[in-house]
């Protein structure tokens, strides 16, 4: 079981209020991703749940028990740190066995669990090495192994993939998702990378300055962002946000249209623009187009075959059924 509820949780460091009162429900078995820009309080929130920081006020309830004052070791949560935090002087086997030894489990059970975790994570050949002799991806797996042997109520991941190179990151992303499907244990995952959030999460929590901007499934957030911040943060490339005269035509202060919802044409369309930089990815092409309706260039996603000269004039047709409208406060107009 791993049901975690935050009730009116706040955190301040001295005079600085990092997390204003915050409520959140995390259901058993869910993969929840906290996502937001640097300094939005997502890591702090995770550390509050872990118990590494004390809440300033409010309650943290784990499986129905008030865990607010419970020390980290007793919360039955396991954490994977950004730096992996492996113990450098211990072998991989001892690293993974460490939480079990601390729990004074008997040696046969320790061996069984360590070997089990090692085979799940493909670490069997490395059990007698030290962390310094492993690659980044292997260290990451050791850190995960150290977490899963405890059979915790929930896993906490603090930006675990940010120290890996791009190719490994995609691989580890899949492995963690795979692990979640197999263990069906609650996982809370902190990242600033919205791609990780979109691909892995059952539920995304978008944070800004300690406030929850929106909670929902990846597709809910993508299709119906609650405000301009979520609209701009979720999705890659970013949603085009246009304010001013063009927005008022649609009875909104700001309108948003995703790059894949704009069609390009040589002859006619709603807006006229001039091609800037084109990014050819093979499967897709991203055009950055300057136009009169917005000071920011608009991004348009087109098929990989399409190609325009730099400076060419084009017409843009947004698909109006996919247009997002926001009011003066930046909130979505239904």
């Amino acid at each position, binding site marked *: 079981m791993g049901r975690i509820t935050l009730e009116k949780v706040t955190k301040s460091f001295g005079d600085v209020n990092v997390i204003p009162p915050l409520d959140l429900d995390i259901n058993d078995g869910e993969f929840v991703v906290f996502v937001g820009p640097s300094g939005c309080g997502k890591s702090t929130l995770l550390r509050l749940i872990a118990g590494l920081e004390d809440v300033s006020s409010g309650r943290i309830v784990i499986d129905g028990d008030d865990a607010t004052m419970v020390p*980290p070791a007793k919360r039955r949560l396991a954490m994977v740190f950004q*730096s992996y935090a492996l113990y450098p*002087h211990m072998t991989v086997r001892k690293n993974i066995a460490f939480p079990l030894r*601390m729990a004074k489990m008997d040696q046969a059970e320790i061996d069984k669990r360590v070997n089990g975790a090692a085979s799940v994570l493909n670490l069997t050949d490395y059990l007698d090495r030290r962390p310094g002799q492993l690659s980044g991806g292997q260290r990451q797996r050791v850190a995960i192994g*150290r977490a899963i042997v405890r059979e915790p109520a929930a896993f906490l991941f603090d930006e675990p993939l940010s120290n890996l190179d791009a190719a490994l990151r995609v691989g580890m992303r899949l492995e963690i998702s795979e692990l979640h499907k197999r263990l069906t244990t609650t996982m809370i995952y902190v990242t600033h990378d919205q791609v990780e959030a979109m691909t892995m999460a059952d539920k995304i929590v978008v944070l800004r300055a300690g406030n929850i901007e929106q909670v929902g499934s990846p597709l809910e957030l993508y299709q119906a962002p609650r405000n301009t911040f979520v609209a701009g943060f979720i999705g890659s490339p970013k949603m085009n946000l246009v304010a001013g005269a063009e927005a008022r035509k649609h009875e909104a202060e700001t309108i948003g249209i995703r790059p894949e919802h704009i069609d390009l044409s040589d002859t006619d369309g709603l807006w006229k623009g001039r091609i800037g930089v084109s990014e050819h990815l093979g499967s897709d092409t991203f055009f950055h187009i300057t136009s009169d309706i917005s000071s920011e260039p608009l991004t348009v996603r087109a098929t990989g075959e399409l190609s325009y000269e730099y400076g060419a004039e084009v017409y843009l047709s947004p698909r109006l059924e996919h247009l997002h409208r926001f009011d003066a406060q930046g909130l979505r107009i239904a």
Partner: protein
Amino acid sequence: MATQHSRSAARLMMAPAVILLLGWMLVPLTMTLWFSFRNYFPLRPDREPGWAGFDNYVRFFSSSAFWPSVQTTLVIVGGVLLITIVLGILLAILLDQPMWGQGAVRILVIAPFFVMPTVSALVWKNMFMDPVNGLFAHLWRFFGAEPVVWLSDASLGSIIMIVSWQWLPFATLILLTAIQSLDGEQLEAAEMDGAPVHKRFVYIVLPHLARAITIVVLIQTIFLLSIFAEIFVTTGGAFGTRTLTYLIFQRVLESQNVGLGSAGGVYAIILANIVAIFLMRIVGKNLDA
């Protein structure tokens, strides 16, 4: 060839330093070896100088003062190492905690290292350990106890205390820098893994400090084997505080027997090497990797 050129140029430029260092070491060593095989009494015209063979070595070794002096040396080295490392680790952990006036406190802690050995020994002898007017004597009397005559009744302990006071800052400083380099996430991970404070210390902090402790042990041992001033100005080698170094000093200057003292010097070199081999065996493996 460019590399050939630069290599010989490098040798040429290194030469002065190497020659100076070699000379610095080899000249006194050779002279000591030479004198150790001679009868040489510069201030005693009644004794004939001449070749002595191994007489000096046999006399120094079979003297009743030899083994006690070796023992005293090892006790002082061991005692000081124990005290400075245990207290050094505790002080380093303490100084690592964030507190007001951290910078000033750290400088104060390091201060004893800047006091010359002679001066600090005299301060301890006269200000703290004097059985009539010393601070300790006052403290003892305040509690109604009989003051301890430190330098004669607890002479070895007193010297260990003085020398430890001098070397504690060094140990603290090295260990503090080591503690500061410990990754905080490792401690947090251990905390989440269910390790209470003392186990985090044993399993995470101590292994992390192993290399720094090794360095402190090695460097301190080199210097502690030759402590002299602290003994000279306090007990003058009496009350069982005569170390090997002090014994050599007495043979050379008090007995005016340069040959005998030189033989003792060679023994001191041998002792230092034995200690070094043991230390390398025990702690040297921490310096690998």
